[in-house]
């Protein structure tokens, strides 16, 4: 073993260290690749979708999968495979925006709460407790009930239910980081509170946040699809996966493919984000490992 190898090992960057551990997780790497493919397919939908997703073809209603229509056609003769590619835009955008929104609000509240402590912390955490008392899809339905059905309101609704999850997580990490030597040292040389929070503490909370964000993407996509399925999310003729699947309900046993394929799209996407989240958790934070 030469001295240079030891030298490089000693100055491995945090990202290098993470990558060294992450690349051994085959399932997570595969999922990451799959997500890249899904995102690219959705982004390139106008160019790669074999048919226009909205054009009806009344000569080809409810046709099963063929080489011409890989996933068959729906009640209007629209190509289901093309609609699945377009639907990826809706599902991935809804998932991404709701997670980012919930994450930014939650992380900010969590850092402020943990950093300042006292009555502010007490009040904020009680509010988060109330929000956390309602798990699953219910808070999203309550929000949609007020704002009205529609995909934009679904984003707000799902973001709102993600806020307390991130806030609690980041508050805990902030409390621990506040006591570390480097934060104490920065404070003693007069670094401002804003800088302490967002330059010195925020990066330390990121590993856990990234893991939860990935797992949350899966949950959010699933919730959005469920809301569309029960008629409160994306409205027809949007090619949203949950809404497409709902269309197929009346044709079970006659034209199963209308239900099967959009469901597989949801399953694969959600599974990929969950597996990625698991891999990230193992690679980023030993303490989060369950």
């Amino acid at each position, binding site marked *: 073993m030469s001295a240079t190898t030891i030298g490089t090992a000693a100055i491995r960057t945090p990202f290098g260290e993470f990558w060294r551990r992450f690349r051994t997780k085959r399932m997570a790497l595969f999922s990451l690749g799959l997500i890249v493919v899904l995102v690219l397919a959705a982004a390139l939908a106008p160019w790669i979708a074999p048919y226009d997703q909205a054009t009806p073809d009344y000569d080809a209603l409810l046709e099963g999968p063929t080489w011409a229509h890989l996933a068959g056609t729906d009640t209007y003769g629209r190509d289901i495979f093309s609609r699945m590619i377009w639907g990826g835009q809706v599902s991935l955008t809804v998932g991404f925006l709701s997670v980012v929104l919930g994450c930014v609000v939650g992380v900010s509240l969590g850092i402020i709460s943990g950093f300042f402590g006292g009555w502010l912390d007490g009040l904020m955490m009680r509010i988060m407790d109330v929000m956390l*008392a309602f*798990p699953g899809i219910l808070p999203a*339905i309550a929000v949609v009930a007020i704002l009205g059905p529609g995909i934009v309101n679904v984003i707000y609704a799902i973001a709102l239910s993600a806020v307390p999850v991130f806030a609690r997580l980041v508050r805990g990490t902030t409390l621990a980081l506040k006591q570390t030597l480097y934060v104490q040292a920065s404070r003693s040389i007069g670094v401002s509170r804003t800088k302490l929070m967002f330059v010195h503490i925020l990066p330390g909370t990121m590993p856990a946040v990234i893991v939860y964000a990935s797992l949350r993407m899966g949950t959010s996509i699933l919730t959005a699809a*469920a809301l569309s*399925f*029960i008629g409160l999310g994306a409205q027809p003729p949007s090619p949203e996966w*949950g809404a497409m*699947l709902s269309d197929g309900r009346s044709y079970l046993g006659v034209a199963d493919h209308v*239900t099967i394929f959009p469901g597989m799209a949801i*399953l694969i996407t959600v599974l990929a984000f969950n597996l990625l989240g698991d891999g990230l958790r193992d690679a980023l934070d030993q303490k989060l490992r369950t």
Partner: protein
Amino acid sequence: MLEYFLRRLAGTVPVLLAVSLFVFAFVHLLPGDPARMVAGPEASLEQVERTRAELWLDQPIWSQYVRYLDQMAHFELGRSIKTHEPVSKLIGERFMPTLWLTVWSMVWAVFAGVGLGVLSGVRRGGWEDRAAMIFAISGISFPSFWLGLMMIDLFSVRLGWLPTGGYGSWQHFVMPAFTLGSAVAAVMARFTRSAYVEVAAEDYVRTARSKGVTERAVIWTHTVRNALIPVITLTGLQFGFLLGGAIVVETVFAWPGLGRLLIDSVSFRDYPVIQAEILLFALEFVLINLIVDLLYGMVNPEIRLK
């Protein structure tokens, strides 16, 4: 123990007040005039004003809230805009089907989840472990509504073994309870496994093994019993999750429960029903959390002192 119970009970008061405020504010957050919504689109201006007075909507807001709390305390939930029936009657009819659905889903999910979790923990690294964890990660990724439709397709439409939906005999429960419980079973399996693995590494488990306790007793008495303590909390939390999930599953199987009533009310903007349902769900969540805290206090005396 009594002091712990009272403290927990007192802790629910702010939560309930916050929820009641939210549900009360709900009417005022909705776009449009609530008096107009209740009176109907064809009502004359006088009728709308009369409705406004009847609903106390012309009173100051704090007095409306006090009246609202008073009504809730007496289970006066108003009437449905859609059917004009009392909301308490509508909810009363739908309550039991949803309760039974969630209970049976929970029963199978706990047994399957804990069973798989323990199996996985005992055979850590083996093929049983891997198979169980593949089931678990799939279980949390499966869209419940899709799973339900696929089961209807196979067992009802093709094989004709089970009814496609509705409420009645035990056959009606099989697919909805399986669908609703599968995600919970998956979460339970993952959680039980990690709890088991953690406890299995404890010194007292090694001590038990080294003093010659049989492997069976090491697993069940020393490890599983201790690993199940955090699982109790999770079960409670998952109950709340099931109540939400029931809304989707009831839609798939045409189940005459609270979930479908809520969806119908949201689409119709039948706000007295929505209000009552949200309040009911909140009460259920608070009650479940309280029961979980109490159970936890019983099995783990350390908690009571905090």
